[in-house]
């Protein structure tokens, strides 16, 4: 059960990380937040995104042998990126809550 929770967490952090990386892009930020991306937010979002992806790897490593964890991570990132891409296409506002990562004090 413990492993199931860790792996679920790993997949979810993977999705979150990918979402932040997407939000760091002008087009996707506009899709989600319907306003221009603040210039100073890009780096913040990218760092957050990268950190979340790393956290996802660490969670995988807690469950499995390193060789297996690496594969699970890479594949989980594929699944995460796909989820984000499809959300951006059909339900972009579902990602609004992640906009706090940009450090902008505004209501979305």
């Amino acid at each position, binding site marked *: 059960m413990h492993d199931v929770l860790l*792996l679920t967490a790993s*997949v979810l952090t993977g999705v979150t990380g*990918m979402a932040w990386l*997407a939000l760091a*892009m002008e*087009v*996707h930020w506009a899709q989600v937040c319907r306003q221009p991306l603040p210039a100073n937010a890009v780096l913040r979002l990218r760092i957050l995104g990268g950190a979340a992806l790393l956290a996802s790897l660490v969670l995988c490593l807690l469950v*499995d*042998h390193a*060789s*297996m964890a690496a*594969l*699970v991570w*890479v*594949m*989980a990132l*594929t*699944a995460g*990126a*796909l989820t*984000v*891409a*499809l959300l*951006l*296409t059909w339900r972009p506002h579902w990602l609004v809550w992640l906009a706090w990562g940009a450090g902008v004090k505004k209501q979305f």
Partner: protein
Amino acid sequence: MFQNFRLSMAWVHTWFGLVLGFVLMICFFFGALSVFDREIDRWAIPASRFAPQPMPSFDKLLRPVFEDMQPNKESLDYLRSRVDGPLPSYFSTVHSWAAYTTHRDPVLGIYAEWEVPKVRNEDDTAWGNSTIDPRTGMLLPDDQLKIGSQFFYPMHYGLHLTWHGLGYWIVGLAALVMLAALVSGVVMHRKIFREFFTFRPQKATQRSVLDLHNLSGVLALPFHFFFAFTGLVIFASIYFPVAETQLKPLHELHEKLEEKTTGLPHERSRLAAPLASVDAMVAEAQRRWEAKGMAGEVGYLSVSHVGAANSYVSIYRAGTDRIALVGDGIHFKASTGQLLREDPPRTTPDSLNTFLTGLHLQHFRHWLLRWLYVLGGLLGCVCIATGFIFFVEKRKKQHAKTGSQGSRVVDALAVTTVTGMLIATLTILIANRVLPEFLPVGWPARGDLEFYLFWAGWLLAMAHAFVRSAPVAQGQLNPAWREQCWAVAGMAVAAVLLNWITTGDHLIRTVFTHTYWPVAGVDLFLLASAALAALATRMLTARMKAFKPKLSQPQTEELAHA
């Protein structure tokens, strides 16, 4: 030949991708199904729907079964022309016995080889295989096709084209082209990062299909690359058979040297000796694995040169907890149970090889990773299918003007390999549930009949795709797409219902009351496919309705000219 590198890459990507894309589609789709081959076997053979079993006792259960075994018919047919004189009616000299199981197998596959007297090529042996219930030792009827592991899986790597191993070569070429297509695709793609998350279904078909092609290709790029590559590594000895050709003397010398270092005899001795308790050797092997901090179950067990004084028993560990496909084999002298050898730690190239092959063959126990592999495989299918559609979309208006039939043919073939393949797959599943348990005398074996019906279903889908393809030549949509999606939805639901009617295993039972995930998983997957196919039917219907008014325009123009 071309103005720049990008254009030449585009040419390679387009034409090689088109020609071998049809093969790659089969590889990806049946590969994705093979991830759950054992589970599909359970669905197809209701008698085997019970929990996975560990390797049974050799002394009590396996040995009597092995002693009753004889070569199978194909093996004897193969040998008939390769011996001087008639074949013996009973094969007594056993070359080897072997049993193989995984953490997902309720039933046990067993295999035996016999030496053949008066054979011209001394490497030729007679062989036989069976599937048994490891709880009782009872044989399972051998006319039942394990649809997952004996049909979908070989389809994935050999297309069931066994003539001179042709299937392996075609698949190998396709894998090589896949690698080339990935590299050329990355070169062609101008905005690999900028459009990393981009899919715009509301844009024109050509644009949105290209988005989906890029998305499914780029996001699963590591998967696509590694699976095409490791697939080639697994069959490297087929593609570069140096051990059988240029380097054969070296290979034989190596076998002799290996015998010296391992102490495991390559040749059978003339002296006879009885077999000691193999169960005791298994217990010792498990104790040794545990002492190394890697306690585990037995995955593969074999006895070589059965009955001879130099006979030995090899016991390999089931590799459920790591990627690398290794057994940490331990070998014992069969007559005494004395330890002969423990496989040493692997060298670096060997570790790399076992990691790469293990990554592809996935013997490990990891359900999340299995599902992620299915996702990767299906993304591969999406990538190839959208490649076909893009090819057609880009050309069909032009072809309609010039009267060329090119895009019409490609589109019909795309229907055949996308929805047609689904129809064929569902046909074999339905045939498996509909055909009676015992067929009338003179009919082909049940498993063979399922096999033929699969191809018949596919041919029918292909015929339908071509018959309905005329609108493509006028720049329109082939109605076969919609009709076959509709058929897929209906057939997938039918397969689930038939499973319920013929075995009594409906989803409430397999999910809640008598939980059995292998069957429940197949049923749920079929229902999900049906839902997606129904959705696709609806969207295609809407699209065809939108096309209708445009369709009448050129006709009136033509009339005006006439």
